[in-house]
């Protein structure tokens, strides 16, 4: 199935939120929005999802708006005073956001705990988590990985948004590739690699992993491009931080419309 229109619509909404707020973290949201769509549009309602890379909050808010979990009127308050939608997700505001995140390295332990709880209860719920590749630098990710393997949590599916860039450089140049499939396989995860902008492939990948009750926690290493969809932003570290000018926003909107086949609004 072709999800181009959906991908374009989500990107347009992300850009609109960032432009309205004058905020950064655009590149990281465009990097992982397709992964989130592949999870949140297709998971069962009872399955849980944690966005561990909380700085991609606009992607989360956008897709949850798409699924009906966040109302339209709330989106307009993003980044403003007295909002429920700050730059990183807030605690206890939406049922679909079980944990506030923003400090990296928290999501995998939390999702692991949820998976362990589901195992103890004997239910079929899946615990999803999305991490950034830079985030796998965090020791807590490794602690959680060993716990998940030791506890045979095959109901845990971790996605890594591998765009190759982190806070202040290329992941390869800083600590090396701590999201390397070989490392996670060596720890005992079942790992698949996937195009992180192909919703159909991502969805098929996790569904196949979920069906494989082999006692191994799962990981989808998703190859992505930071700023995906807007050439000026693609694969550029500065778009982790920069807000758009009005001219940049106008150009970006047009590029998304053309690139993803959206009609003019």
């Amino acid at each position: 199935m072709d999800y181009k229109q959906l991908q374009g619509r989500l990107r347009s909404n992300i850009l609109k939120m960032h432009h309205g707020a004058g905020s950064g973290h655009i590149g990281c949201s465009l990097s992982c929005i397709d992964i989130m769509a592949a999870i949140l549009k297709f998971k069962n309602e009872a399955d849980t999802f944690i966005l561990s890379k909380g700085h991609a909050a606009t992607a989360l808010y956008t897709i949850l708006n798409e699924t009906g979990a966040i109302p339209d009127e709330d989106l307009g308050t993003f980044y403003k005073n007295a909002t429920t939608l700050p730059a990183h997700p807030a605690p206890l505001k939406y049922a679909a956001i079980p944990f506030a995140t923003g400090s990296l390295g928290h999501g995998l332990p939390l999702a692991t705990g949820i998976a362990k709880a589901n195992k103890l209860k004997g239910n079929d719920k899946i615990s999803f988590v999305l991490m950034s590749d830079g985030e796998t630098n965090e020791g807590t990710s490794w602690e959680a990985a060993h716990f998940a393997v030791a506890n045979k949590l095959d109901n845990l599916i971790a996605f890594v948004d591998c765009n190759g860039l982190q806070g202040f450089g290329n992941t390869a140049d800083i600590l090396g590739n701590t999201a390397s499939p070989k490392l996670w396989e060596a720890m005992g995860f079942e790992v698949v690699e996937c195009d992180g902008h192909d919703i159909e492939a991502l969805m098929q990948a996790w569904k196949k992993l979920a069906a494989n009750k082999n006692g191994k926690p799962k990981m989808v290493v998703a190859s992505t491009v930071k700023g995906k969809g807007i050439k000026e932003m693609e694969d550029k570290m500065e778009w982790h931080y920069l807000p758009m000018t009005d001219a940049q926003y106008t150009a970006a909107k047009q590029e998304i419309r053309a690139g993803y086949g959206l009609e003019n609004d």
Partner: protein
Amino acid sequence: MRKHFSEYIERNLADREDFVFITGDLGYNALEGVAKKMGPRFINAGVAEQNMIGVAAGMASQGFQVLCYSIAPFVVYRCLEQMRNDVCFHNLPVYIAGNGGGYGYGIMGSSHHAIEDIATLSGLPNMQCYIPGFVEDMRATMDEMFARRRPAYLRLGLGKNLPADMQLVTGGTQTVLTPEARLTILSQGPVTNNLIAALAKSDKQNSIDVFTLNTMPFVTLPAALATSIATTKNILVIEEHISIGGLGSSLALLVNEAGLPLDKFISLHAEGYPNGLYGSQAYHQQVSGLGEENILRVINSYF
């Protein structure tokens, strides 16, 4: 207290299907019974305390009450962000039980001591710290902690039995107040046993009101304590914790806010390692002026 703690868990909680116990790879010769009784709900998270708290928060979000156990400093300092972000922000029923609060691990050294733990944790949102001083108030404290179903820290130490002339009250213990009292003493945790030993040697016992407080943060002055302070105008605070962010600093704020005039306020507290030397818990208490002899000397200075 560790023995009473594990007995309490075995007796009151181990059978509950919604209760999970996670240890950070500790509990030899103490938790075997709990582990046996709880089966798969007893989890050894390994030597990975931060993940232990994250996992606990995840489990608590799915309806479990989760108790995490370790040596006090390991479960307090290393996991602070997990306690704040994962547990406290979400007001989840995750309880951390830290063995060896204060200088409890003595000659094991500074890495094993927890003398800033209350200051570290008690300001976190929704957090309640419990610091029982006696076996008897430990039971009442744990009853309250588990009934509250919110983030908590239980600081375990070497508690003795409650003396006959003290009674359990909400949030602590106290002696019967006397109208002739000239000194109000507020103490916290097992170091109160040193105070009791000092009082036994004092001829001023009948002129002193003694209170213990076993919960922090300390944000409301109990009426009986306020009455005593208004009468005596003299305060002595005893705590096996640094003065910053502890019992004494909290009491000083509350007394000032209440406008209670004072003649004298002395805080006896953990001083850290002022001479750079190490020893038993009793040694460190003595170096900090928390030993029986110094407490008696300070009490006498009020009369």
